[in-house]
């Protein structure tokens, strides 16, 4: 099952990227995420690994994931190493001069589960999609807040420069 959701963010791709590359931010905006912690010595970048858990229905589902694509400031993609089979991707593209379009793609599979597996994939899609939408809304809020903070900083610096 593959689910795509996207949102427009009033900030350039670099600001979105800066927020998404920091693993400490994930628990702040990923809805239903109960764990996103660095596993290993590399905090981010290609090959970084994280232990992740997402609450879906009666279970916290997850495992170890590894970053398999890291193209600043456009794409971050991961695959599962252990646990439930999953793939995820952040796709960030410029939208006009001051905005970005952020796409969150998430794919998961239940291998060998027969009919129950198929039913589970479909049944889980609804709560997963709901969480992805909420995740994007929270990401938008956080990044736009960060963008406003950056703009205010620039204005302060410019005022200070013109006074001196």
């Amino acid at each position, binding site marked *: 099952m593959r689910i795509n959701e996207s949102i427009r963010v009033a900030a350039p791709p670099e600001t979105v990227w800066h927020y998404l590359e920091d693993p400490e931010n994930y628990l702040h905006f990923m809805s239903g995420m109960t764990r996103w912690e660095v596993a290993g010595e590399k905090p981010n970048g290609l090959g970084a690994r994280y232990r992740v858990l997402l609450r879906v229905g*009666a279970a*916290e589902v997850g495992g170890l994931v590894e970053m398999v694509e890291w193209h600043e400031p456009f794409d971050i993609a991961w695959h599962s190493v252990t646990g439930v089979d999953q793939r995820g991707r952040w796709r960030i593209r410029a939208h006009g001069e001051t905005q970005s379009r952020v796409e969150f793609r998430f794919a998961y599979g239940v291998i060998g589960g027969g009919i*129950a597996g198929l039913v*589970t994939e479909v*049944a889980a899609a609804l709560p997963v999609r709901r969480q992805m939408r909420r995740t994007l809304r929270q990401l938008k809020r956080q990044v736009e807040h960060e963008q406003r903070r950056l703009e205010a900083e620039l204005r302060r610096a410019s005022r200070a420069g013109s006074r001196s």
Partner: protein
Amino acid sequence: MYYVATRETGSALARFVKQRVSNRLDAKLEDRDPDYLREALPLLWLLSTFYFRAEVRDLGNVPADRPVLLVGNHSGGNVIVDTFIFSLAFSTYFGVERPFHQLAHNLAIAWPFAGEMLRKAGTLSASHEHAERALAAGAPVLVYPGGDWETHRPSWEGSKIDFAGRKGFIRLALDAGVPIVPVVSIGGQETALFLSRGAGLAKALRLDKLLRLKVLPISLALPWGLNVGDFAGHIPLPAKITIEVLPPIDLEREFGPDPDVDEVYAHVTAQMQEALDGLAAERRFPVIG
């Protein structure tokens, strides 16, 4: 002549059955099959999420990097719904790659079809040796000290911890040098209307001697109506199941180098009862939760 032949055939058959059963009981750790578990998870997830509206809390209290003895209260008669839900939660939380074993009554393991499934899921027949081997191999082990006595308690005692004074799990934890992690669950005793353990009936029929059964439970359950023994199981009512994992208890750190078993037993059961009281207080209605 006919009598002797019949007697010899009978004893040969008994030897054959005994051999088969004892072969089946000798569950090996390597019988656990992670791929089988992975394939079973979807059905368990569907049932847990939509039928039992299950909730498993604080699995993070299970240490991720060392063996532990998980001690649970047993509920649901012979259809141990909360065990399946906990196994699902454990396997999705830590991944099926992490070994995990449960101890079950010999009769459950010896069943031809269900026994095979249980062994693939990591279930071992209940014995000190099996549990020690699993813990020595680094796997968490789930035990139910209350066993058949607790799982068949009347429904109105659903929020009561009743290990019947069985303290073997404490010796097991001490021998293996592992912490105890209590796991309390509620709702299992609402999957049928359990009326009586039938302890007197079991004793009168000598089931304790023949089959290690101290109870012959009587319940009202689907699809049987009046259900005596629950040997064939029953269709569980869709009771909401809530499970909570408590913080680990390091016996030597909390009770000194030579812990008193009675003191530890009182401490563990008191902690579990307190947590179970909390879960019971959250419930508004039977079955619905």
